[in-house]
């Protein structure tokens, strides 16, 4: 088992490494983002890029043959400053792989993920992420705590009342709500509860808000985040439970004299939970991921929103840390879910020898 776990963790690490490397290289392969403005702005911008190690800066005589040599070596220059005393600065893009090696070296040897260039200039990218990750985590933990029991209860209720009006109502509502895109739901809830009724804050309350306002501030995002999960668990639990309740061993249990309640609680629920539990675990780990749309619309300063902001600002150092977190979470979730099967279902023994 230990070997299996180690193998899975190592594989996850390799996958993360490949994903992050590809992300870095692909992002850096994008056309160089030239700044807005005249020569002063261009020079100032390229000098900063030079200091960051992303461009070469070479002073040459304007249009001298040697420029062609550099062009051949580094590709067409990105920018040429105005001529002063017959010469000017030529800026060339540092080869992507060289940038990659520097970046990797900094991450591995110094745990330095770089600095924000435009979103929060000069602030370490990892610090920016750490300052925001707790907002996403808090919100998602509450959301899981709220959605899992509710989804399970509704699913159990629907299964127990199978083919009755209650079951049909729950199932229909679940189908409707599971089909509604999250941003529609968010806008809808905002419109009614924040703007029309004015019961809840229309944006995420700032850290300086009162406790009561902060509590109210959780209602809309938690509700919106939980909605699809509740529907999912409800549907899944109902299906699993219905299947178990029709199984022979449950019939046997009933015929042996167990009451319906005893049979359901002791046998049906326990067995129905086998495929459901890993998904709860996966959901619980995924809480770190946040929700990009919700965070953006509700103004939550989490890492989901940060991902979009870093893209908009072309602040790639932040993007890479954010990407690393999302990748790690996804891969860890996969590993933990796989491992959890073994604990939940004694029939599954991963890595065990015959």
């Amino acid at each position, binding site marked *: 088992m230990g070997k299996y776990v180690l193998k899975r963790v190592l594989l996850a690490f390799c996958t993360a490494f490949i994903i992050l490397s590809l992300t870095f290289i692909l992002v850096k392969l994008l056309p160089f983002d030239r700044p807005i403005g005249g020569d002063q702005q261009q020079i100032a911008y390229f000098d900063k890029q030079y*200091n960051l190690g992303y461009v070469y800066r070479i002073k040459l*005589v304007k249009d001298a043959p040697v420029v062609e040599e550099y062009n051949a070596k580094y590709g067409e220059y990105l920018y040429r400053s105005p001529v002063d005393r017959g010469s000017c600065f030529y800026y060339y893009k540092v080869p992507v792989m060289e940038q990659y090696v520097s970046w990797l070296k900094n991450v591995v040897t110094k745990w330095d993920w770089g600095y924000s260039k435009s979103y929060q200039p000069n602030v370490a990218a990892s610090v920016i992420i750490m300052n925001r990750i707790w907002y996403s985590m808090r919100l998602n933990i509450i959301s899981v705590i709220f959605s899992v029991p509710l989804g399970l209860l509704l699913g159990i209720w629907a299964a127990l009342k199978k083919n009755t009006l209650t079951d049909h109502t729950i199932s229909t509502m679940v189908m409707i709500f599971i089909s509604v895109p999250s941003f529609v739901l968010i806008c809808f809830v905002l419109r009614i509860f924040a703007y029309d009724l004015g019961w809840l804050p229309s*944006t995420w309350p700032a850290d300086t808000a009162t406790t009561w306002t902060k509590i109210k501030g959780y209602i809309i995002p938690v509700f919106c985040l939980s909605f699809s999960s509740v529907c999912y668990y409800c549907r899944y639990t109902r299906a699993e439970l219905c299947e178990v309740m029709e199984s022979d061993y449950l019939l046997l249990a009933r015929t042996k004299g167990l009451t319906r309640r005893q049979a359901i609680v002791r046998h049906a629920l326990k067995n129905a939970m086998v495929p459901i539990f890993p998904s709860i675990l996966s959901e619980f780990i995924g809480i770190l991921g946040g929700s990009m749309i919700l965070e953006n619309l509700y103004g939550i300063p989490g890492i989901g929103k940060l991902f979009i902001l870093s893209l908009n600002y072309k602040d790639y150092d932040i993007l890479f840390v954010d990407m690393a977190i999302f990748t790690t979470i996804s891969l860890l979730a996969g590993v933990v879910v796989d491992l959890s099967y073994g604990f939940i279902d004694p029939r599954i023994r991963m890595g065990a020898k015959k």
Partner: protein
Amino acid sequence: MKKLLAIVLALVMALGMFSAFADDAAWDGVYMDEDDFKAYIAYDLDVVFDAISGQLGEENLAKVEAAVEEGKAAIDAAATVAEVEAAYDAAYAAVLACVPTADGLYTYKKLPDAERTNILGILEKYAVTTGITGMSLYENGAYQMINPRITLGTENYITGYGFGTLAEGAITEDLEYETNPDWARYYHICETSDPGTLNAPNDQGSQVGDMYSYIQAVFFTNFMNETKDGYDWVPELAKEKPVAVNDEDGDGMATTWRWEVRTGETDGLVYTTGSQLESRQAFNGRPVALEDYEFGFKLLLTQANQFYRGSEFATTKTGAVVGAKDYYNATENGYDDEAWEKVGLKTYVEDGKNYFEITFTEEQTRFYAMYYGQMYFYQPIPQEFVELVTVKNYLGFNEDTTESPVDNSLSVGPYYVERYDSDQQVVYKKNPNYVFADTKYAIPGIHDKIFPAAATDKNATFNEFLAGHFDVCRIPDEYLNEYRNDPRTHTTKGNSVFKLNVNASNAETWEYLFGTDGVVTQTAKEAYWELKPCMGNHHFVQALSYSINRSELAVAKGRVPSVDYLSSNYMSDPENGMSYDATEAHQNAVTGLLEDTDGYGYSLELARDYFRLALTELEAEGAYAPGTAEAPTEIHFEIAWMYPTDEEDYHNQIKNYIETAFNDESVSGGAYKLVVDYWVGNTWSDVYYNKLMLGQYDLGFGSISGNSLDPIGFVSVLSSDQDISGNFTLNWGVDTNDPDAYPIVYNDLRWSFDALYNAVNSQVIASNGQNKAQLTFKYTPIAKNEDGTYTGSFTVASTLPDITSIEIADIECCNYERYYNGDGTYAEAPVEFTVDDQGAGLLVVTFTVPAELAEDYATGSGTSAEPKGDTGFDLYYNLTFNGVTQSGLYYSVTDNFEVPEAAEAPAEAEEAPAETEEAPAETETAA
């Protein structure tokens, strides 16, 4: 007898009919009959006459009138389209010949504001007539809703100032939504994103600058006047308005100005911070010292600090400060006190008073000394504070975010930073130590919420306002009808006019500007823009302009329709707050555009007439061939837009206007069909940087905002000369330094746009009406002599030899590459030269390079085996122009010595210098 009379009559009638028939038969214009065509062409002559007649002297006026009349007669007598066009061209040339061109040195900078405004009107008229302004659509003024709890400084928007909300306004009720009672009376606004810093000196956009302005005080500021219909200039950090130091001729202009400034010692001016950190608290209440004023500039201008606005300030041409550029260039590695000594920014104490003194490179009036002294990105700051927080973190966060802008800023402005919660809010609190704290800025604070939803949802801010969360918002288009007359609604004036910019270049112009060796940018052959002949036809562009119903378009979008180039924000007299819009000069400039239209340049009839006129001309030129009603010839052109939503918001409507006007049966009888295509980039700036500035478009949506207090300076962006426009030209097709392209007459003299622009903004050396440099240089490449020495020469010509004298100081042979690439030494050596004064301002300077030096330099930075690069030749000279002497000027060229034959250089490398040897022969550059 009667019979005879009848026969004669019949003969006469037959002759007349034949004559009429013969006339009709000769006329080859298909889409417009002869009389109408001639009338429109003759009208063009009238427009030329109107444009120049006001500035003509009696004698020239008479000549021009005669030339116009003759021209009209010739147009009338012409029988074909080509003949009419030729008659117009001849008349146009005759008109030009009547007016002498400006020649000599001119400056109109010292003229009174009213006269300079007239010149602006002349420049504007030229620009709108030639189409280099593009087609204005609307001004970005808007309908704004303001929370009734706010008492505005004035209910009527003051152009260039606003409603005086913060400075003169007040808040009389709490905002119920605000849970922090201390902030209930703060002014609640929002930002769509968190800039993460308040470091305006290091920011390119306007957002950070706006936020920084709350904590900033400047030398001179604006406050609303007593009658609440304008604003006054008021010393803020200064104690008085600028006083000229060297106005020797008493004309009110000087290069050096000074003003007394407030300090802690004399006026109790102190810094304020909201930081609770002990190290920062030490600065709370710290008196402002005189040297802090100087350090604020030093911080900005030191290149090592890498402040965007520092490099901009160092290299600006308008309002440039003596020595600023040199200091910037000398401070790559940090502050340089020795270099600072030469910068025209000084503080000193005289008679117990503290003075700040500024020396500009050009003479300025008192107003402009005050205006440039306003310094949007500057404020005094103690050096020890910056050293404490570090330049990198100044006005921002530190690396681990334990310090925020609250801790890393000091305020002398009306507010200070109370809180900065990333991605949540920035809160400012009234600064009790502000100079005018007792009389201005009654509102106790500003709550600036970070509200990203507003970036993607145009109704988000409006919803927040209606819910009582914000104090101000713009009304979205779809709610305009509902809220336009709401008592909370106010109208604002815009600061920019949005336009469809026009690429009217012909193939030759485009090649010159954007071709493989273009002067603006260099384009690969395969990326050449496919120019549309119709866009080069002035009448076609006029027709496009007439076809757009600006009024309908703008009103539907809650904007202000406009045919003007400058928005109503621009001031003709900034000191007294007089809008340029209201001046007669402006009215005269745009009258022609509005004639027979709805008041905003829209007339379907005129549009169709001009389309007919254009098609007639284009067909006569052979640019297009007609199709049939079943298979019409399709004319396509493209409009480039900023945002994907522009297709729905603007393009479809404008396309509909244009196509409706052109594709009407009455225009070409179905022989042509116009199709307007659509383009949009990934980000808003793509239209500027990938289309407009590179000539890769037909029509392109966009706008440039300038300084509203300096409209005469702002029209620089209309120039086709990139040195004048600062690379911000958006409309192409007219050479603005060609006085014959379209006449500009001022003071009975004919000018190019560039020449008159320079004359009114600083000074111009005009030659044949064109803007010229003081000197032109021609380099004759070095040639090897038998003894191994090299001889080359510079020919220096003065444009105005009578007032120009040149002293050649030195010629240096420089190996730039060796210096920059490798060994750290500056390989520069003087060479011998002789000067041959050929008279009439022409000098021929011949120099000789010793054989040893030539051999040493022949390889550039490389080796004999692998030569690299060129050698530079610097001609140093002192110039005395119009009594003013400038020393240490230079003109540089590059050239190559022959690589010694013994060298085993690769064939390719050997060939390279040979190619470049020829290039300098054609080098003729203005200095």
